[in-house]
């Protein structure tokens, strides 16, 4: 127990890094995943093929391998200084590359969540909208997307929860987030492994619980009697 209290600073910094990773790769994968989903539901055949091959490639490869490839490929392509800072917090190139790898992997799952949401809207809805004279954009904005958005929330939330847990994988490559702190402390204080695991696991459980609660609140707010 003392180990947890004495090393509280490290654990807190670890979870801060975890949360920043979650935010960056969450935002990036939402953007890329939505673009890919729009490819996959578009009438243009080659765009559909591009979307499908992206999803099949990235969904079937282990995240560890994708991260290893990102670390190898991105600097080789000439992107050597991707670091930046927000306020007093600095993000080095390594952090950004890890976040990009996580985002590349998660986008495939975001894409599938968004696509299944759009596909869950009954085609009759759009037909009805068209037959009362709405234009394509009107039917998209007022009929299809509001319903799709509702259907997307639960699968998207479980994707973000998976992402929150997956951020731990970057520990293998030495990004100092919570799981990395756990490995370091477990090596240092071998007799306290149970407490260290309990403490760090509790942090992850809290993050997951917050995401799950937020999604169910949002879902209830947007729910509509059908």
């Amino acid at each position, binding site marked *: 127990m003392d180990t947890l209290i004495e090393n509280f600073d490290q654990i807190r910094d670890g979870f801060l890094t975890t949360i920043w990773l979650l935010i960056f790769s969450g935002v990036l994968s939402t953007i890329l995943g939505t673009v890919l989903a729009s490819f996959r539901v578009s009438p243009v055949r*080659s765009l559909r093929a591009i979307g499908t091959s992206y999803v099949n490639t990235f969904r079937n*490869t282990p995240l560890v391998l994708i991260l290893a490839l990102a670390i190898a490929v991105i600097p080789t392509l000439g992107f050597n200084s991707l670091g930046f800072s927000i306020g007093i917090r600095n993000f080095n190139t390594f952090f950004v590359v890890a976040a990009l790898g996580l985002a590349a992997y998660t986008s495939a799952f975001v894409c599938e969540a968004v696509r*299944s949401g759009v596909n869950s809207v009954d085609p009759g809805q759009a037909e009805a909208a068209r037959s009362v004279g709405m234009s394509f954009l009107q039917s998209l904005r007022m009929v299809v997307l509001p319903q799709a958005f509702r259907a997307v929330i639960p699968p998207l939330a479980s994707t973000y929860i998976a992402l929150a847990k997956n951020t731990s994988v970057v520990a293998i490559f030495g990004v100092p987030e919570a799981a990395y702190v756990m490995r370091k402390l477990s090596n240092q204080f071998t007799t306290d492994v149970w407490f260290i695991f309990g403490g760090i696991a509790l942090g992850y459980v809290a993050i997951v619980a917050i995401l799950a609660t937020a999604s169910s609140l949002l879902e209830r707010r947007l729910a509509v009697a059908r």
Partner: protein
Amino acid sequence: MSTVLFDSPGPRARARHNVLTVVAVVIALAILGWVIWKLWQEGEFSADLWEDLAQPNIWNAYGLGLAATLKAAVSAIILSVLFGAVFAVARLSDRIYFRLPARIIVEFFRSVPLLLLIMFVYFGLLHQLYWSLVLALMLYNGSVLAEVFRAGVLAVPRGQSEAAQAVGMRKGQVMRLVLLPQSVAIMLPAIVSQCVIVLKDTALGQIVSYRELVAESQGIAQFVHHNIVPLCIAAVIYIAINYSLSKFAVYLQRALSQRGRTSEGATATSDVTFGPGANAGA
């Protein structure tokens, strides 16, 4: 092709789509070409790499890695199915002293990252590489499967268990003779798609330096002094296996639901088991 988003295209729209198809292909090929050209310039595809890769001991290493991955994945999936079945039944029990602990255990192991579990089992319980990985995989995937199985049993129409009770079956008989056989149609595809996740997740064994396919390919990368091609070979192996497994899961789902035994329930829960998020293991 007509979906909720657009009508079937007319001749003008079709011409426009053809133009867009060509434009998209050109842009995609341009990006891919630039990446390959850049990597080629940096010497990632140089001749000595291919000579090194042609050595038989390299392919031996890939084989060993793949064998280690499959070995861990197969043991883990068998144990996970058992763990999932036990905890699903416990969660469906009428008795709170079975239901509540099972629920806490399942919820806990589902929300803790697998990597933490592997480290915990290795440093805190077993100190044994292979079994630490398998045990951690069992705890995580077993908990996920417990939820899948529970959803499968709940998806069997209520009238089935009511009818079984009405003809005088006891609780165990209702579960064993009526509910479980009917929900297998939903569970089998879910188990197959969980295999994909387990296969990918064995790669996390690296944190305790279990030498599976990804670790071996990284070793090969160091040995031949080139990173990208050896890693891509491992990726291709994973994609081939996992893609066929996912296709098999979809085929199973279709074949089993066509038997019509669980017509409504199967479609209702297929979202739970095949939901995109459900597949997002590491």
